[in-house]
Every structure is written in C-alpha cells, then in structure tokens.
C-alpha cells in the first residue's frame, strides 16, 4: 500500500517536472531565460565566444571532445597529487596511476564507476574535483542531445548551436540552482556537510569508540543524483545514512535521477514544435521503466535463496544488503531508477539481489539506458532507436521514412545504427576478453554463474556509463582499471560523436510536409514499434550472456556455489 502511494506521488511529481522543467529547459536553451546573464556575459568574454557565434556540428563536436579530454587530464592530475594539495584532513596519499586514470575517465564520462572506497582513498579536494565533473558531465550529455534535437528542429541550417554557450546555460540555469536547493534538503534530513575531518566518539554504554568518516557529502549527493552521475562520497554510496539518511531523501533521490531525463522529452517536443512526439518518447521510457520495476520489485519481495535455505523465513523480502529504513520496495525503486538512468548510485548491495532482481537492473542498462536514460544520453539514445523504428516502419509500408519532416535516408540510418550497435559490441567483446584472461577471471568474489554476472555487470555498467556494480568484483586491478576506462570512453564518445553528426546532417536537410501517406510517429503504434525495436535489439544481443549469468542462476534451484 505504501509502495502504491509512493509510486502515485512519484508519477504526479514527475508529471509536473516534465511539464515545467521541460519548458524551462527549452527556454534556457533558446536563450529566453536571462536572470543570470550578468554571470553569463563575463564567462563568454573569457572564452571569447557568445550566443551569436554558432558552430557547425564538427566544431561543436571538436569543442566537446577537447573539453572532455582536458577535464580528464585535470582530474587525473589532482588525484595523482592529492597528498601534496590542501583540503586533505586525513593526510591520504596520492592515488596510483591506473586508479586515477580509471576514476578521471569515469567521472568525465558521467559513469562514476568507483574502483576505490571514497572515505579511505580520496581527499576532500579530490572529492570536490569529482563533484565538478558531476556538474559538467551531465551538462555535456544534455548539450549533445540538444544538437540532435536542433537537427530535427532546424531546416537547411549548417549551424547547430554553440557548445560553450549551451554548456554554460545548462550549468547556470539548470544544474547549479536545483542541486543547491535539494542539497539543503539532504542536509536537513541528516546528510553530512562539513569540511572538518572524521569524528571520534566514545559510547559510555557499550564501551565502543568509533571513528566516523565525514566530509562535504550532502551537496555532492544532490548533484550526484540530479546529474545521473551516481558516484558517492562514501563507499556504501546511497546505502550510507550520511548520504541517504531517510525515506524522504530516498524518494528525493529517485525523483532527482528521473527528473532531467523525463523533462527532456518535453523540451524535445517543445523545440521541434510537437509535444505529442515528446509524449511518444516518454511513453516508451515509461513502459520500459514500469516493466523493469515490476520485475525487480517482485523479485526482491521474495526471500533470498541462501537465507531461505538456512531456514529463516521472511515476510519482508530479501534483506541481504538492504537497509532497514528503506525495506525491499523502496530499495528496488531506487536501484531500478538508478540503473535505468545511467546514474548507478545504489541504496542497497545489488550484488546480493535475487537472480531476477539483478536481471532487472542489468536489463535497464543493456537496453541502452533509455528507461528513461541518463541526462541527455537517454533522450539521444532513444531518438536513435526511434530513427531505427521509423526506418523499419518505412520498409513495411514501402515509403521513404520520415521523422518530424526529415527524410531518413542511408546516411541517417547508418549513423543511428552505429550509435545503437557500438555499446553491445564494446560490452560483449570486452566481457569475452575478461573471461578469457586470468587477470579478468581473478576479479569476481562469487563463484558459479554469479561470478560471471559480476564480470558481465561491470562491463555492461561501464559501457553504458552507468557506474553501478555487482561490487564483489575486485575492480582496482591494472586490468579492470584500463579495460574499464576503454569501455567507458567508447560507451561515451563513440556514441556521442555519431549523434552529433546525425544532428548536423539532419539540420542541413529541408523540411518535407506531412501527407496522408506519412507513417505517423506520435501515436501508440509508433510507441509500440519503438519499444519493440529497443527490446529486440537488446534482447537478441544480450540474451546468450544473460542465460549464462542470472538466468542460469535463477534456474539452479537448490544449488549453492
């Protein structure tokens, strides 16, 4: 009953977010929101650029890639030198080269995969440097989606916008204000926010002396969720009470991770002049999200097989790795939202989820992160699937397919196909490499099919820039640090560049007007077709791998490994 009410409130809150944050973002990126123009102008002056200086898609992509490379390098340098830099109350040493590289790539690509335990590895300055990327990386994802949207919205245009202007506006008007306000709520509920070091306390009742890690956690938590980042200050991530103290912050986290990906479908609809098209995409996202949530929530409401075998009955579901204040359903809601949005934060140990519960989380990523996907990345990935669906629809009715008045021809289909296929190829090839090498097989904690699932999960998560983990895997090895970084870079830029190219190609095309014979792309038929394309592509490519992992594990009744 509580869960039904939670879902109902979530739907209502998200509906408002979709409508108002969506139209606000359309206004921001259209340059119609100006209340912070007194900050905007000096930034443009320093960069020697401005809204009137629009770029071609190639210059836009060039700026995006160079800026990301600089961000990786800057983050890497801070991690390598943290022992010699200020804001290090615990006097932690420098981070090693392989781990620094993996972590820098991880936060710049919006993945937030963490091969380290934050409170025992990183200084406050390093955490703050990663927080910078928690703002910048979702902004980069959003502006990449913006280019694709402008591709549909503009006609016979060579320019797709200005990267620096879009980035600045996204940070100033969207991410910073929302993160700051919600950061206050996190702290009010109990999330820690201090620059003082760890606290040591003696409990006279039981004689225990504790040393408690602290830090600037609460505000990092806000942008961690809003930016679909997922990398927490503490090792236990959203399960740690200092990050996610109450049922309210848990709900707030779920809302934050879903808000931008959901609202962007309205922004898209507003910018292309047809909100119905945005609703169609939102419907695809909602169908996939609802199905995955139903699967994982139902699975986690069952007892853990090992606990049941030990003779303990449970009416409160699988309690292994879950916090009492959340319980099974609020845990499942949080992790499904997190894996369906490329966030990857966890409020429970997902390695200990039941086989089908874990399958639901894996599936959210394997579908390409479109349920509803990361900030920006969710929208553009789903638009790639929509282009594929339009292409298939066109084949069925024997006409040149069109989407939003743009003819979808060979170049567009090739670019969309490239964007859709790079992720499965990267993930499956790297998983094959990991299971065929001793260094890869040394990773898993668990034996049997679950050990394979841990490897598959790690490479799926990084290849989709998600960042959640079946955390039994020992990822801080040279092999996993380097292979993971390659996985994250391909999952980010090998998809983003074709997306930008597609935006540029589409913007140059002329608009063809709709006729009676045009295949409709804003009705339930199209929603069904796009959903089917997404599920079939994901299902066909990943079913064999899933069969060896969670499916086999589910079918191994009575066996323990």
């Amino acid at each position: 009953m509580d869960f039904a009410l939670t879902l109902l409130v979530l739907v209502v809150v998200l509906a408002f977010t979709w409508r108002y944050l969506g139209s606000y973002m359309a206004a921001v990126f259209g340059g119609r929101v100006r209340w912070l123009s007194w900050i905007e102008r000096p930034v443009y002056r320093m960069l020697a650029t401005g809204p009137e200086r629009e770029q071609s898609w190639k210059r836009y992509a060039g700026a995006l890639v160079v800026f990301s490379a600089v961000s990786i390098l800057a983050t890497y340098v801070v991690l390598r030198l943290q022992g010699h830099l200020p804001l290090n109350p615990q006097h932690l040493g420098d981070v090693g080269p392989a781990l620094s590289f993996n972590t820098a790539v991880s936060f710049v690509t919006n993945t937030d995969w963490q091969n380290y335990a934050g409170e025992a590895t990183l200084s406050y300055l390093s955490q703050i440097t990663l927080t910078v990327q928690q703002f910048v990386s979702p902004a980069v994802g959003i502006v990449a989606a913006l280019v694709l949207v402008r591709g549909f919205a503009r006609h016979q245009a060579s320019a797709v916008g200005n990267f620096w202007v879009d980035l600045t506006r996204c940070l100033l008007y969207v991410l910073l204000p929302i993160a700051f306000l919600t950061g206050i709520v996190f702290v009010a509920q109990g999330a820690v926010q201090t620059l003082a070091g760890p606290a040591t306390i003696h409990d006279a009742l039981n004689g225990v002396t504790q040393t408690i890690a602290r830090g600037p956690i609460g505000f990092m938590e806000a942008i961690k969720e809003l930016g679909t980042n997922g990398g927490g200050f503490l090792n236990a991530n959203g399960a740690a009470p200092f990050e996610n103290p109450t049922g309210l912050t848990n709900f707030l986290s779920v809302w934050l991770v879903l808000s931008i990906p959901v609202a962007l479908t309205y922004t898209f609809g507003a910018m292309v002049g047809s909100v119905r098209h945005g609703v169609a995409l939102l419907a695809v996202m909602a169908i996939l999200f609802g199905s995955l949530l139903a699967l994982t929530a139902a699975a986690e409401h069952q007892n853990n097989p090992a606990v049941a075998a030990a003779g303990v009955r449970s009416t409160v579901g699988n309690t292994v790795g879950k916090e009492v204040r959340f319980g099974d359903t609020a845990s499942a809601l949080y992790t499904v939202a997190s894996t369906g949005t490329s966030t990857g934060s966890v409020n429970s140990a997902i390695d200990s989820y039941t086989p089908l519960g874990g399958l639901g989380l894996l599936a959210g990523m394997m579908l390409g992160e479109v349920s509803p996907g990361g900030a920006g990345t969710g929208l553009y990935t789903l638009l790639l699937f929509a282009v594929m669906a339009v292409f298939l629809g066109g084949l069925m009715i024997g006409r040149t397919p069109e989407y939003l008045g743009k003819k979808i021809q060979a170049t567009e289909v090739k670019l969309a196909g490239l964007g859709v296929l790079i992720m499965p190829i990267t993930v499956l090839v790297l998983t094959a490499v990991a299971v065929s090498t001793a260094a890869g097989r040394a990773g898993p904690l668990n034996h049997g099919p679950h050990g394979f699932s841990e490897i598959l999960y790690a490479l799926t998560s990084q290849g989709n820039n998600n960042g959640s983990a079946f955390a039994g895997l020992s990822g801080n090895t040279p092999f996993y640090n380097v292979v993971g970084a390659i996985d994250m870079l391909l999952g980010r830029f090998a998809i983003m560049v074709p997306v930008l190219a597609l935006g540029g190609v589409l913007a140059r095309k002329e608009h063809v007007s709709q006729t009676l014979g045009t295949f409709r792309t804003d009705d339930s038929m199209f929603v069904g077709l796009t959903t089917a394309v997404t599920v079939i592509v994901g299902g066909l490519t990943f079913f064999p791998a899933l069969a060896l992992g969670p499916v086999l594990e589910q079918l191994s009744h009575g066996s323990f490994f």
Partner: protein
Amino acid sequence: MWTHLRRSIAMAVICFLVCGLLYAVAGTGAAQVLFASQANGSIGPNGSLLIGQNWTGRAWFHGRPDDMGPYAANRATHISGGDNPLVANGVPGASGATNLGPRSLALLRDTRSLVILWHRLGVANPTPDLVTTSGSGYDPDISPSDALVQVPMVAKATGIAPARLRALIARQTHGPQWGFLGSPYVDVLTLNEALAQLRGRSS
C-alpha cells in the same frame, strides 16, 4: 584545435571555481548555519544516530550484524566478505556490504552461523534482518519486529518486565516518513539509551 584547447582550459578553471570550490563552500556554509547538528553527523553523547555500533551481551538490544558486528570476536563464525575499507566502528578496513550473491555457499553458511549465535543469546526465532548484513555495513536501525524478538533475551538479562520493554520499543518506533516513505524502524542507539534510563530507574 588551439581555440578549442584555450577555451577548454578557461572553462575547466571556471567550472572548478564555481561548481567545485564555490558550491562546496557555499553549501557547507548554508548547511552549518541552517542545520549544524545534521551537517556535522547527528552526533549525540554516545555516538551518531546514523551510524550503527556494536552491542554485545544480552543486556542490550543488538543492531544488525556486519563484518565488525557483535560476532566479530568469534573468529570461527566470522562473517565473510566485507573487504571494503571503511573507518567505522573504530576499526578500519572491515565494513561495507558482504556482496555475497543469492546462491553463495558462504552466505548460506554465514546465515546458519548467525541463526545459531542468536539461539545461544536466547533469541529463538531471529528475523531476516538479524541474520543478514545491510548495504552500508553499519545500518543504525532495526525493524520493530527485529527488536521484539530480542525482548525475552533483554528481559532475562536486565530483569525488566517484557511488557515494559515492548512499550519501550513501541515508543521508539518511527513509522514510514510522511506515512508512506520507507519502512518503519527503531534506531538502536536511542533504543538502548532509553533502555539505560529504564535500567537506571529500575536498579
């Protein structure tokens, strides 16, 4: 290329100053002014309300087991996994989730050992929370039923009537937030602080 590079470096510096330093400093300032107690860790006289502690013996309510939990002293039944370094419970390097899979033999063995340990403590039917580890490894809470099954153990050790202990648990139970968010829970530290008061009055 060089234009991109020059702008990238300038933008990286601006972002570090605004999204990094300014955000962290302004956030910390606002937090310390508005919600100082929470911002510093919700720390009371005996510890943080948000960080679980070890409770040993039969005279206290126990929290959920973790790697450094009530059972760590017994090496034979030491709980597996939990190799994530974390400075909690005063011992670095031993907390976090176990990350054992649902068909893990180690998880099966650990759960059986925990059931036996609860039986030895005098808890006949330990609830699932009491034989499984949490996500953080230092869950500060237990569910009301987790507390109720420990009543006979605590009543026998302290001499306080079970009915008074059950009333104590009822007073310490927090319902779901706003009536529907999350699950009902009892904070083990405040429960034991209240128990200590009760014991002080009884003796």
